[in-house]
């Protein structure tokens, strides 16, 4: 069921849409990849503080060449900086913060999500197993999670399933998914379509969603007011 998906969101647009979920005063943990790009779209009148699970609250941008400090990295092991008002702590304290639900929003990627709220993101059997890092703690600890991912594989296989096929990272913990095609909530064992990528039809989304999809009336197109 290969489908031509040329109209989906770019990585930058996904990041831009994620940033619209931010609120002033939010503490946010962003996974490696697309989630991290969202930082570029935080409105200038809004304050958001980034949590890096290796022990930093208040992560800043990459350092200038002369600022590079091997003792200051993010969870992706990249050199970073701190913003004014940052704090540092141990990994146990960092995951106490995460597991205890103190982070307002977590954004991370996935291989598959299903309409039971399950997520698979760390392991493809038969391929090299690198490990889950902090992902299992992040999905188990956060109340407010957005998963960002492509809606389907390159050969058109849906990644939004009725049941995940890969080993799970977390069970029943995902409530919101943003793909290159759509923004969906997960409610009562169903995907609920909330927004469409510009130019993408409900039928296209339906065709690429393997799990049960609910269409609640007119589904608006996403808007990107800050390009």
């Amino acid at each position, binding site marked *: 069921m290969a489908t031509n998906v040329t109209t989906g969101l770019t990585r930058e647009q996904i990041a831009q849409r994620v940033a619209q979920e931010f609120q002033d005063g939010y503490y946010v943990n962003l996974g490696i990849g697309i989630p991290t790009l969202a930082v570029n779209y935080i409105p200038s009148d809004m304050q958001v503080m980034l949590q*890096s*699970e*290796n*022990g*930093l609250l208040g992560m800043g*941008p*990459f*350092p*200038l*060449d002369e*600022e*590079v*400090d*091997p*003792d*200051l*990295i*993010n969870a*992706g*092991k*990249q*050199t*970073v900086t*701190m913003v004014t008002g940052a704090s*540092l*702590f*141990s*990994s*146990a304290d*960092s*995951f*106490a913060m*995460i*597991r205890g639900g103190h982070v307002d929003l977590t954004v991370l990627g996935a291989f598959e999500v299903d309409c039971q709220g*399950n997520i698979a993101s760390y*392991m493809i059997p038969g391929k*090299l*197993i*690198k*490990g*889950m*890092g*902090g*992902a*299992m*703690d992040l999905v*188990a*600890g956060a109340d407010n999670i957005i998963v960002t991912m492509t809606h389907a594989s390159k050969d058109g296989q849906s990644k939004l399933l009725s049941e995940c096929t890969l*080993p*799970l*990272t*977390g*069970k*029943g913990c995902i409530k919101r998914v943003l793909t290159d095609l759509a923004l969906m909530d997960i409610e009562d064992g169903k995907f609920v379509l909330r927004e469409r990528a510009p130019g993408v039809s409900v039928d296209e989304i339906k065709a690429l969603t393997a799990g049960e999809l609910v269409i609640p009336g007119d589904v608006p197109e996403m808007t990107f007011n800050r390009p």
Partner: protein
Amino acid sequence: MAGFDKVVNSYEEALAGLEDNMTVIAGGFGLCGIPENLIKEIKRKGTKGLTIASNNAGVDGAGLGLLLVDKQIKKMIASYVGENALFESQMMSGELEVELTPQGTLAEKMRAGGAGIPAFYTATGYGTPVGEGKEEREFNGRHYILEEALQGDFSIAKAWKADRFGNLMFRKTARNFNPMAITAGKIAVVEVEEIVEVGELDPDEIHLPGIYVNRLIKGSFEKRIEQRTVRSA
């Protein structure tokens, strides 16, 4: 060593008593805040059959990756083991046993090991391969699994500054797993960048009290960067 002076003068002395088949808890995240010289000393000693608990396993040719060359590690307890070809091949061939543990659970297992908590419940890993074979229990309508504490014969860690009593301060994200790793080892060996006289550290600013430290040594550090990312001015 008199009274509370924890300083030893050689890496050989620092790891005296470390024997084959022991369990070692190591601090560090990636190559950040790792006990570089203690790892090199384990390589030099040639201790084999080690079980090592550490968030990562280093990279090829650095950090715990050095101990893979002569197959000194029997089992690795870690949350993320990518970026290491030798690790991959030994894992695939079955020479190296790997117990993948979620990062937060690993940190808490070390803390528990040091804090006399034999086991705790966490939602992390429930319904996943990590939860298989572990007790599941509901509290207030949520599902949790039981995780047991982790303790080591030795712990090896890196701090920034210490006084001779072993009171420690860490620097930036090089703190990471180091404090908990230190508490979880029967013999805790810590290397630092600077040793100051007792009384120079403000008691309110000590990150980890010297009671947890058995041996302290001043080292010099390469501090290799795994992902050097910069922005332009």
